[in-house]
């Protein structure tokens, strides 16, 4: 009560006692009695005020220490008597015969004494509040309540070794309490029913009591927890040892998970919350970490079998127990990765096996002659490789989502393993592009839209895993060019969508050329429409379709020629801007030449300053051909058309077609078709399924002296006939083609590396060799991994050309020369 009143008037009255003064010792006896009454549950007969006043008076009469110590003695006596009266015999019974019931009775009695003590102390603390507020504060002692707790600890549980208060030889109950609790826990682990609320009470008691030596720690941590942990360690150590011998991996994992759950539940129900982490640590050590590698290789049912069996729930449990621990998680990752490597390796081996068994190495020289059937079969194998790898990925993707809880470390493990598997096959870029090619050509119509999306996404995923993205770009360009020029692509949407997905992966630089190809096709189609509306076009008498291609976008289809592909219907036309170049292909027929010239003229009218070069290798034509009275419509390549027209020409001029015989050399000389494609075209005309030409001799090989004549006897049940053209289909490359592709890719890489080095040096001006190599690798890593040897070569070339120079001070450092 604030007494700040300074009103004048009157003198201050002295505080006089109303009740008679009593001896301190006598007063204390009254209090001691009251405390005993409180323990006897006779509170209701006591007047709070009376005892409060007694304590108050004792403190005021400077008898605080008498009171404080007196209370302690009363409490100690009471505790000791209670133990002797109500607990000791139960403790001895539990010692002699440690049944669940005896332990329970003993622990229950301790817990009861404790809870009564706490209740009593709360009331004692209240009536002695004045002592706490005044005496305890100035004497720097524990509060009455804390002192009461210490009395319980030191009298009932843990008498200090030299304390006389322990008295009568009793060593305290702590060891017995701990033993009983551990026995109860072990009983529960073995399936016995125990009274959890008693155990909870005991735990709470031990948590609330502070350790005498280190008051920040609970007695629980000092006496119970260490023993609990070590006992649990032994228990689970033995259990794990036994289980690893008798259980398979799924069962082991399930049991371990159940144990972890049960112990967590136990801690939650009746142990200290701080124990949770420690006890789980013990279980994880003994059940998981100790056997992490062993569980995975349990012979009859380990990780391999679980993965093969696609046991999603079991893998989920396995992951759950492994995931929180870094070392076992690493083991699991490695296990999964190894299995992916194994499975992926088998898929790759299946691809390679038939090829090598066919003795291809021996036939390497004749590789260009590999029959189209053989190549087609290999293409099927190649497609299956991609398909199988993707299917395998789908399997692991499902594990990832359903078993591995979408954990980031498993994602990276799966992806890393697939990156290895895919890149271990050095044909992966080609095969992937082929796979996309096949699906864009043939596959889409059979699939629903979302399947298409999934397929494309998976393809792009595999693309992401490729290290040599530039090689993929090379193949993709070649395959895309063929799809576009022979109008084989099934869905523009799918094509565009795929390109835009690649763009997301690699940036617009990567897809620039691909998009350019689409744009060329679009522009050509627009121009064809305009051209058809003109009168010059109507005068040609044939249907002409020309694709105008920008050379920088398109792969080099035939060396040293700007590609212009022509297709025409009804009558076949290959145009050629023959400006006297002796290597240019010669168009044999007047109409064709006129058409080509007309187109050139038309085109150059709109685009002056450009140069058109005709490119025949990719075109095709529909021809109506009369074989001795019967007419067929032949769909042939542009080259084949030129060859056939040689015979027609003769016929019209001399009217003796049958007699017209040309040697291969003559055909070559008249048409200027390069030797290799020519012999392939002649093969398909004379040796294939449809023999439009007769060949002498009748062998498959074409030599310059072989002769060809028009086959007037040709017959076929169909009216429309498609002459197969080996080169127009996207197949697995032969060894020779592969070498050529490698050369192109290698050349491209050199350019890229040089450009990158120059770009880096332009900004840095000066750089040490190592740093330059590393920076170059970093910048190019999204496309391919350059070998440092290659970079070194490029630096050498740039030094020669004086883009760079070695620093005069340090030969390991380069300077940029502007």
């Amino acid at each position: 009560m604030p007494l700040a009143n300074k009103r004048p008037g009157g003198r201050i009255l002295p505080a006089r006692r109303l009740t008679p003064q009593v001896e301190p010792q006598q007063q204390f006896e009254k209090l001691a009695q009251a405390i005993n009454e409180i323990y006897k549950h006779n509170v209701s007969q006591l007047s709070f005020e009376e005892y409060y006043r007694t304590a108050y008076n004792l403190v005021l009469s400077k008898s605080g220490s008498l009171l404080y110590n007196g209370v302690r003695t009363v409490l100690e006596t009471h505790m000791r008597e209670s133990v002797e009266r109500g607990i000791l015999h139960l403790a001895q019974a539990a010692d002699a015969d440690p049944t669940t019931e005896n332990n329970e009775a003993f622990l229950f009695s301790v817990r009861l004494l404790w809870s009564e003590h706490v209740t009593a102390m709360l009331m004692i603390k209240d009536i002695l509040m004045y002592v706490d507020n005044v005496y305890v504060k100035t004497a720097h002692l524990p509060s009455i309540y804390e002192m009461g707790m210490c009395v319980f600890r030191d009298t009932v549980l843990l008498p200090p070794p030299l304390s006389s208060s322990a008295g009568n030889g009793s060593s305290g109950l702590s060891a017995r309490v701990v033993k009983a609790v551990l026995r109860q826990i072990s009983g529960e682990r073995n399936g016995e029913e125990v009274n959890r609320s008693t155990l909870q009470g005991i735990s709470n008691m031990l948590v609330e009591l502070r350790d005498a030596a280190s008051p920040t720690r609970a007695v629980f941590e000092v006496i119970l927890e260490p023993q609990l942990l070590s006992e649990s360690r032994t228990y689970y150590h033995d259990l794990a040892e036994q289980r690893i011998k008798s259980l398979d991996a799924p069962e082991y994992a399930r049991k371990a998970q159940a144990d972890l759950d049960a112990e967590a539940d136990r801690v939650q129900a009746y142990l200290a919350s701080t124990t949770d982490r420690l006890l789980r640590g013990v279980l994880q050590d003994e059940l998981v970490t100790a056997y992490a590698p062993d569980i995975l290789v349990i012979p009859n049912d380990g990780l391999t079998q679980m993965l093969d069996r696609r046991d999603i729930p079991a893998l989920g449990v396995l992951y759950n127990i492994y995931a929180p621990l870094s070392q076992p998680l690493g083991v699991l990752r490695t296990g999964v990765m190894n299995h992916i490597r194994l499975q992926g390796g088998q898929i790759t081996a299946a691809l390679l096996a038939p090829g090598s068994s066919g003795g291809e190495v021996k036939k390497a020289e004749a590789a260009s002659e590999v029959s189209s059937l053989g190549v087609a079969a290999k293409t099927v194998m190649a497609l299956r490789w991609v398909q199988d790898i993707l299917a395998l990925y789908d399997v692991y993707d499902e594990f990832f989502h359903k078993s591995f809880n979408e954990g980031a470390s498993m994602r990276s493990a799966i992806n890393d393993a697939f990156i290895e598997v895919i890149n271990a096959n050095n044909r992966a870029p080609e095969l992937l592009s082929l796979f996309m090619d096949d699906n864009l050509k043939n596959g889409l119509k059979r699939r629903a839209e979302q399947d298409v999306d999934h397929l494309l996404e998976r393809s792009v995923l595999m693309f992401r895993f490729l290290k040599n993205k530039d090689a993929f770009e090379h193949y993709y360009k070649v395959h895309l060019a063929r799809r576009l020029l022979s109008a084989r692509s099934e869905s523009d949407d799918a094509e565009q969508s795929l390109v835009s997905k690649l763009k997301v992966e690699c940036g617009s630089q990567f897809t620039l050329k691909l998009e350019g190809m689409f744009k060329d096709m679009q522009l050509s189609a627009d121009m064809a429409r305009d051209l058809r509306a003109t009168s010059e076009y109507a005068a040609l008498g044939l249907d002409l379709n020309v694709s105008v291609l920008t050379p920088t976008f398109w792969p080099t289809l035939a060396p040293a020629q700007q590609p212009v592909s022509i297709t025409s219907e009804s009558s076949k036309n290959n145009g050629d801007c023959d400006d006297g170049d002796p290597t240019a292909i010669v168009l044999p027929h007047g109409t064709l030449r006129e058409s080509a010239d007309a187109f050139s003229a038309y085109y150059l009218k709109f685009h002056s300053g450009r140069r058109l070069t005709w490119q025949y290798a990719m075109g095709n034509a529909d021809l109506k051909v009369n074989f001795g009275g019967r007419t067929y419509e032949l769909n042939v390549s542009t080259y084949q058309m030129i060859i056939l027209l040689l015979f027609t020409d003769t016929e019209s001029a001399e009217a003796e077609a049958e007699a017209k015989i040309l040697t291969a050399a003559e055909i070559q000389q008249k048409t200027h078709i390069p030797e290799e494609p020519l012999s392939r075209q002649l093969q398909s005309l004379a040796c294939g399924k449809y023999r439009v030409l007769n060949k002498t001799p009748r062998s498959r090989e074409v030599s310059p002296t072989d002769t060809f004549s028009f086959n007037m006897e040709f017959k076929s049940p169909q009216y429309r006939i498609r002459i197969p053209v080996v080169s127009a289909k996207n197949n697995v490359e032969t060894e020779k083609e592969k070498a050529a592709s490698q050369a192109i890719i290698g050349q491209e890489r050199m350019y890229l590396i040089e450009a990158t080095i120059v770009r880096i040096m332009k900004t840095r001006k000066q750089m040490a060799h190592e740093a330059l190599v590393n920076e170059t690798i970093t910048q190019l890593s999204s496309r391919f991994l350059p070998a440092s040897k290659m970079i070194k070569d490029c630096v050498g070339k740039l030094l020669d050309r004086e883009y760079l120079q070695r620093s005069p001070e340090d030969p390991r450092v380069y300077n940029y020369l502007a």
Partner: protein
Amino acid sequence: MSTTVKLISGDGFTFVIEKNVAEHSPTIKNMLDVSHGGAFTEALTNEIKFPEIKGKVLEKVCQYLYYKHRYAAEGSTDRVPEFQFDLELSLELLMAADYLDC
């Protein structure tokens, strides 16, 4: 359960005040407390005898408890007037305040 409590002075004066007002004194609050599972006679009878406190002083105590109840309420923005009492009582009031811990 009664909402009032009877305070009786050493010289026989009786003051009946509201319990929640009386409990502004921690000492009185403890006397009336039943939350520990046992009730002292004061809590059972709602009657507290203060043999050491005179009626005159106890009256002031009651006034002070109401004063505190009125102005100590949390969030109260009222201007707090000075608590008035006779100077001659000051020492006894001081003792009572110490006793009642308020």
